[in-house]
């Protein structure tokens, strides 16, 4: 099935909201459209569907990995190189705690960032449709799916006052690294 995508660029937030509202009224579900904006909106402002994510798993995995690494480094080096210093036990637990703690936190933070990137689906080669005006404060409404629905959505967006409505080129993604003016 040939999926198509369309982006409608709105200058006014309220226009975008009314466009999504009438899309919802016309049987285009919250799953089918997505909003591009230059800053976060309170969730549900456009009636979009909630995107499920598993971000919370990442720090836990990271913490576990970091903790294990910490244990291995501390216990391992002390046991395999058993030098007595200052009469302290070969396995000195309080100092180990410090390093295990740092390891745990390091793992958790790194994995959280990885998780954010992964769950945000970036780095990505680029979306099907995009408009640089989004970062200048415009609202982009993307609808993707069956061609018939996409065309209907495009009509709704034009009616609701979209500044511009652009369709994607079949099967191509936009390369965000390239300068659009060069093309």
């Amino acid at each position, binding site marked *: 099935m040939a999926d198509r995508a369309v982006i409608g660029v709105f200058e006014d937030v309220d226009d975008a909201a009314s466009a999504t509202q009438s899309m919802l009224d016309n049987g285009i579900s919250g799953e089918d459209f997505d909003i591009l904006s230059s800053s976060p909106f309170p969730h549900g402002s456009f009636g979009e569907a909630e995107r499920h994510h598993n971000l919370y798993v990442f720090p836990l995995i990271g913490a576990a990995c970091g903790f294990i690494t910490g244990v291995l480094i501390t216990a391992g080096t002390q046991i395999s190189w058993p*030098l007595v210093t*200052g*009469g302290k036990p070969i396995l000195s637990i309080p100092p180990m705690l410090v390093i295990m703690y740092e390891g745990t936190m390091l793992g958790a933070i790194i994995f959280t960032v990885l998780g954010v990137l992964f769950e945000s689906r970036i780095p990505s080669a680029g979306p099907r449709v995009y408009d640089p005006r989004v970062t200048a404060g415009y609202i982009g409404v993307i609808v993707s799916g069956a061609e018939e629905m996409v065309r209907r959505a495009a009509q709704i967006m034009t009616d609701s006052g979209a500044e511009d409505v652009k369709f994607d080129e079949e099967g191509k993604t936009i390369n965000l690294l390239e300068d659009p003016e060069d093309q």
Partner: protein
Amino acid sequence: MACQAENNIPINEESAFRENRAIEWIRIERYWTDSEDFAESSPQYLPMTCQHCGNAPCEPVCPVYATYHTPDGLNAQIYNRCIGTRYCGNNCPWNVRYFNYHDPKFEDTFTNHLNPDVTVRSRGIMEKCSMCVQRIRRGVREARYDGRELQDGDIMPACAQTCPTNAIIFGDLNNPDSQVSQMVASDRNYELFGELGTAPGLTYLAKVDVDAEEHSEEEEHAAVPQSPVIWMTVNG
């Protein structure tokens, strides 16, 4: 001097003393009795060298294991590992760890007199009294070669060897018959900063009072330490 020669300690120039950077593995600290009149005050001498603590404060703070505790009970310094964080020097209550602020300088001919058993330390590392570890090793080796137990006099650090009044005595504390063991058992024995719990391997004998039977020409009580002693375990 014996120590300097034995352990290849560079000659301290005057500037080193002025900057408090002199390297003297064993130094004699002088304290003066309180007295208004300088003529009446008298010096008291405290030989100060690495205490070779059982629980040495300098050891655990080193990030690279450059100093650690040998099974003999020595507090060893590994020059190759040392990177010169100087934390050990800070954590030593006796200030007996010395840092090489500059490369060692020896006068022309002195280089020919260096002890081949001891490395010359480069700039940027810590050094300290090793209890003449090269002599200890030789003594142990020879004793084992001869197939006998170590006894007093087999090993003699340079300072003990040259001290004309035998104020420094070295021996094996694990051997109850050794001279040090007997001296350590005496009432006069005390540890310098013993309350820190570092279990120094070096202990001092308090000087005995004039009024007591011992005849001594020096006056006043106070703890003038006499003999550092070392205990050591000999393996095999």
